[in-house]
């Protein structure tokens, strides 16, 4: 029987290090540490939960609340001088999850092709430079204000994934990608809400991701921005691993990057049993 054997979360961008070399190195070290920990767990599949910024799910729509890439591999889009590569995936695992979720009151869109922008490409390529781990992308939509999944639904869908994995043979790691507070492309771009970010990380550390899951999207938008909606990807990961708490690996509010950057390691069921 398969299990969710680990869950992590990370911001999903990188910008030039000029002027912020120390903080940029913290971010790189964070990716390295996540890659090391995930590699040590030896998962068969990594479910990467992220947002999609436009190359695949064009802004004019459709913009489903949830979309899973059902494919044996997918390409990176290559913006921001990110290498253009093919990433291995697992269509069987992904497709069966979409079908399973439908029996648990979650209707998830599927797509057979994907052009992964930085939201997936950066964490994948930074954590897995050998590019030899099957990654299944799950996109939680952020672009349409009319089709945003609530944080509580994301938390519940994480639990549904964990249940699904027990019907499989694969061991799975979940990585929530994006956030923390940032306001890309808006008049508030550049703002970082360090207090909000600290509160959110404290909740996850204490095993209270479920409390954050009770927030509304409007609350997150007000306090963490349109980019902050990506914390729902972290909340999904909390739900998937059982919300046992965990450890913030770093927090860096990098002003020139206009983003509260962080990485987080959730306590796994195995660690929790010790």
């Amino acid at each position, binding site marked *: 029987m398969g299990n969710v054997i680990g869950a992590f979360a990370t911001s999903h*961008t*990188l*910008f*030039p*290090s000029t002027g912020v070399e120390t903080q940029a190195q913290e971010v*790189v070290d964070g990716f390295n540490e996540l890659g090391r920990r995930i590699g040590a767990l030896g998962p068969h599949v990594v479910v990467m939960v992220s947002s999609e*910024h*436009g*190359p695949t799910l*064009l*802004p*004019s729509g459709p913009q489903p609340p949830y979309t899973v890439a059902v494919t044996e591999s997918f*390409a990176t889009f*290559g*913006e*921001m*001088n*990110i*290498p*253009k*590569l*093919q990433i291995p995936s697992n269509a069987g695992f992904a497709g069966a999850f979409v079908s399973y979720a439908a029996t648990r009151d979650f209707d998830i869109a599927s797509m057979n092709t994907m*052009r992964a922008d*930085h939201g997936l490409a*950066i964490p994948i*390529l*930074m954590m897995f*430079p*050998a*590019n*030899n781990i099957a990654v299944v992308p799950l996109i939680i939509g952020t*672009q349409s204000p009319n089709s945003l999944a609530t944080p509580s639904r994301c938390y519940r869908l994480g639990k549904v994934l964990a249940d699904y994995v027990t019907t499989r043979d694969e061991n799975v790691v979940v990585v929530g990608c994006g956030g923390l507070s940032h*306001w*890309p*492309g*808006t*008049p508030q*771009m550049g703002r970082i809400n360090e207090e909000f970010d600290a509160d959110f990380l404290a909740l996850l550390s204490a095993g209270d991701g479920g409390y954050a899951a009770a927030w509304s999207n409007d609350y997150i938008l007000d306090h963490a921005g*349109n980019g902050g909606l990506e914390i729902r990807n972290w909340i999904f990961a909390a739900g998937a691993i059982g919300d046992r708490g965990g450890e913030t690996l770093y927090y860096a509010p990098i002003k020139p990057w206009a983003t509260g950057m962080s990485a987080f390691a959730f306590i796994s069921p195995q660690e929790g049993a010790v």
Partner: protein
Amino acid sequence: MSSAELSRMVEDGLASAAAWSAIRALDDEFLARYALTPNEAATVRNKPTPDKLASLGVPPLLAMWGSFMCNPDFETSMSAGEYFTARPCQAERTDG
């Protein structure tokens, strides 16, 4: 304020590498496909940043992409290339 044509142009740039290149080159023939207002056309030709496109009504993330396409300096300021030069990925490149 309607930015529908400007947004459509940026979205076409996202959908097609050829369209992205045409926008980057400010190709007159390509730009003529879109009914841009004089103000929009001037903004596109003057290295816009996201705030400039957003002020015309372009949605936030499209404003980011539009700035990537129209403003090489902005794209450079957002480059992650240095992290992959120091740590090349071990897989074949594609032209996708």
